[in-house]
C-alpha cells in the first residue's frame, strides 16, 4: 500500500516535472523542473529495488549533468535571451505530434501481457526469475517456492531488496554470480560487462578531450586560419 502511494507520488512528480519542462519558457525554471523530474526518477529506481542505480542517478544526473546544464544556462543566459519564446503555433504542433506519439506508445506498450510473454520464453540458466516465479512475484511478492535452491533464493532475495552493488560490480569484471554460466553453455544469456566497462573509459577520455577542445578559446588569431568560408 505504502509502495503504491510512493509510486504514484513520484510518478506524478516525474511526469509533471517533464511536462513542466516542456511547458516552461524560462530556461532557469526549466532546469528546476528537470531536477524535480530526474530526482523523482531516482526515487522510482529505489522503488524498483535498484538502489545503486538510484544513487547513481542522483549523483550523476542531478548532481552532475543538470549542474552542467545549469552552467550552460548561466553562460548563455545574458540579458534578453533568458526567455526565448516558442510561438503558440509551434507549441500546438509540437503538442499534437507529442500526443500522437504518446498514443502510439501507449497503444502498443500499454496492453501487453508481460507475464504471458515471459512464460513463453525459454528459461534462463538458473535464473531466479523463471516464468513461474514471475507470476508469483506478481501475486504475492514472494520468492519462496521459486523452484530453485536455497542459495539462489537468497541471491534473488538480495536482488529484490535492491542490494545490487556487489553484483553490478562483479558483472563489470565479467562475472555473473547470479547465473551459472558454465551450465548455461552456448546460451550465454548472462554476459559479464567487462568490455563496455573498460571501453567506456576510453570513450569518456575522448569525449572530454573533444569537449575541452571546443570549449577552450583558440589561442591563435582567427585571421590566420587557413580556411575562411564564412
Amino acid at each position: 500500500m505504502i509502495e503504491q502511494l510512493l509510486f504514484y507520488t513520484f510518478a506524478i512528480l516525474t511526469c509533471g516535472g517533464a511536462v513542466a519542462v516542456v511547458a516552461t519558457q524560462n530556461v532557469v525554471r526549466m532546469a528546476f523542473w528537470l531536477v524535480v523530474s530526474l530526482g523523482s526518477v531516482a526515487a522510482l529506481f529505489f522503488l524498483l529495488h535498484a538502489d545503486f542505480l538510484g544513487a547513481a542517478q542522483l549523483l550523476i544526473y542531478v548532481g552532475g549533468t543538470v549542474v552542467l546544464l545549469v552552467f550552460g544556462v548561466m553562460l548563455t543566459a545574458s540579458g534578453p535571451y533568458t526567455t526565448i519564446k516558442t510561438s503558440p503555433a509551434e507549441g500546438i504542433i509540437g503538442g499534437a505530434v507529442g500526443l500522437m506519439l504518446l498514443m502510439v506508445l501507449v497503444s502498443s506498450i500499454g496492453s501487453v501481457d508481460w507475464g504471458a510473454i515471459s512464460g513463453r520464453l525459454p528459461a534462463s540458466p538458473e535464473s531466479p526469475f523463471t516464468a513461474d516465479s514471475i507470476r508469483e512475484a506478481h501475486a504475492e511478492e514472494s520468492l519462496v517456492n521459486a523452484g530453485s535452491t536455497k542459495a539462489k533464493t537468497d541471491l534473488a532475495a538480495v536482488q529484490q531488496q535492491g542490494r545490487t552493488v556487489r553484483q553490478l560490480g562483479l558483472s563489470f569484471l565479467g562475472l555473473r554470480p547470479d547465473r551459472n554460466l558454465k551450465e548455461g553453455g552456448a546460451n550465454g544469456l548472462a554476459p559479464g560487462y567487462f568490455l563496455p566497462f573498460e571501453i567506456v573509459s576510453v570513450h569518456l577520455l575522448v569525449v572530454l578531450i573533444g569537449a575541452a577542445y571546443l570549449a577552450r578559446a583558440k589561442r591563435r588569431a582567427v585571421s590566420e586560419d587557413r580556411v575562411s568560408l564564412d
Partner: protein
Amino acid sequence: MDFEALFKQFLSGDVAQQASILRSLTIFLPELVLSSSIVLMLVARLVSLDRIIPTHWFALLGGMTSFVIVLFQFWEFGNSQTVPVEVFTGLAIHDEFSIFFRGFLTFFLVFVIALTVLTGIPDDEDAPDFYSLLCGAVVGMMLMSSANHLLMLFIGIEMASVPSYAMTGFLKGKRRSSEAALKFVVYGAGAAGVMLFGISLLTGILGTAQFSELAPRFQAVFANHAGMQDPATRCVALALLMIAVGFAFKLSLVPFHFWCPDAFHGAPAEVGGFLSVGSKAAAFALLVRLTTSLAGDGSGALSQLSLSSGLGLGLIAIITTTFGNLAAYSQRNIKRMLAYSTIAHAGYMLMAVSALLVLQSVQTDLVFQGNHQENGPRAMEGLLYYLCVYLFMNLGAFAIVALIRNQTYSEEIDDYKGLAQQVPVLAICMAICMFSLVGIPPLGGFYGKAFIFASVYEATNVHWFMWLVLAAGGLNTVISLFYYLRVAKTMCMDSRPADAVPVTLAASSSPAMYVMLVSGMVVFLGIIIDPLSKVALHAAHALF
C-alpha cells in the same frame, strides 16, 4: 561463490564457444593499440614531445599497427582451424565478417590521417585533439562492427557518433561549423534516444540483449501470434522501428537524413570524407549483423519478420536513393552535393541488405540459377565490395575538395571552372571518382552496383516488389549521371575565369600522389575484381 572461484572464472571464463578474458584481450589488440595511441598523444603533448615529433606520427603509427594486427588475424583465420568465437563473455564476436570491417576501418583511418596531414586541417596545436577524436571514433566503429549485444550496439554507435559531433565543429571559429555541429549533435542525440527506447522495449520483451539469442526467443514468443492485433507484436514492431530509426540516422536514410547535408556542408571536407565512409560502413556492418541474427534460420514467424523488414528496407532504399539523387542536382556547394550523393549511395547499399533479407525469408524450394544458399552471401559480397570501392571514390572526391579549398578558399562548384587547365591531375582524378560514383564501367563503382543489382534481381524471384527496387536502382543510376558529370564538365570543359584564384599542384607533389593513389585504386578495383570479391565473399560467409 567465494572470491577465489570468481577470480578464476574471470581469468578462464571457460564457457563453450567463448574466449577467455585474456584471449579476448588479445583479439581486441587493434582496438587497444588505437586506445593507447590516444593516451600516447596526450602524454606527448603533456611533455612537449609533440614539438619534436609531430602528433600525426603517433596516430599514423597506431593506425598502421592496428591494421597490421588485423591483417595478421585475417591470415590466422585463413590458415589455421580458427573458428568464429564470442569474446568478452559474448558481448562481441570475432569472425571473418568483423575482421573484414575492422581491417576496412583501420585501413581507412590510415588514409584519413594521411589526408589530414597533407591538407593540414588540424594545425600542430590542435593535432592531439583531432587525432584523439578520430581514433576514438574509429574504435567505436570497430566495436559496432563486432558487436554481439544490444548494449554494445548502443555503446558503439555512441562512441562513433559523439567524437564525430566534435569533429564536425572542429573549425570552432566558424559560424557554419558550429551550426553544423549543433544540428548534428541534437539530431544524433534525438535519434539515439529513440533507438535506446526501442532497445529497451526489445530487451524487455525478449528478455535478453544478446544477438545470438534474439531469433530463438522471438520464435518462442511469436510462434503463433504474428498479427498486429496482438499488442506484443505491435510492441515488437514499434521497438524494431525505433531501432531502425537509429540506423536510419547513422546511414542518413530518408526521412532521417536531415542532419547529413547540413553537417557535411559545415564540417571540414576531411571530416566529411571520414563520416561519409567510416560511419556508413560500420553502421552497415551492424545493421547486417543485427538483421541476420534477428532473421535467424528464417522459419516460421521469422520468415514473415524477415520478409516484411526486407521489403520495408527496400521501400526506404527506393525513397532514399531517389531523394538523394534528385536533391543533389541543384546543389552549388560541392560538399553539400557530395552529402546528398552519400545519402543516395546509402540507398543503393541498403538495397543489398533488403535483398538479403528477402532472400533469407525463403529457405527452401527456390530453384533458380545456381545454389540458392549462395544468394545471401552474394548479396553481402556486393555490399562489401561496394563499400570498398566507395571508400576510395568518396575519399578521393573529398580529398580533392579539401586540396582545392586550401588554395581557392572556396567549395562552390562554379569556382571549379576550368581547373583541368591548371591542375590536370586533380581534374582527372575527380572525373574518375565521379564516373565511378555514377557506376560507369570499367571503374570499381560499376561492379559494386552490378553485384548489388544482381542480388536484387535474384530477390525478385521471392517477391515482386523487388522489381520496383531494381527499377529504381537502374533509373537512379541514369539520373545521377547528370550531376556527377556536371562537376567533371565544369572542371574539364569550361574555361577558367580570368579573375579566379590560380591553383597549382605539381604532379609529383605528395598531395597529387595521394589523390592519384586513391583514384588509381578506384580504377584498379574496376579491372582486377577477383581478389577483393573473394575476400568479401569469404567474409560474408561468416554470417550464415
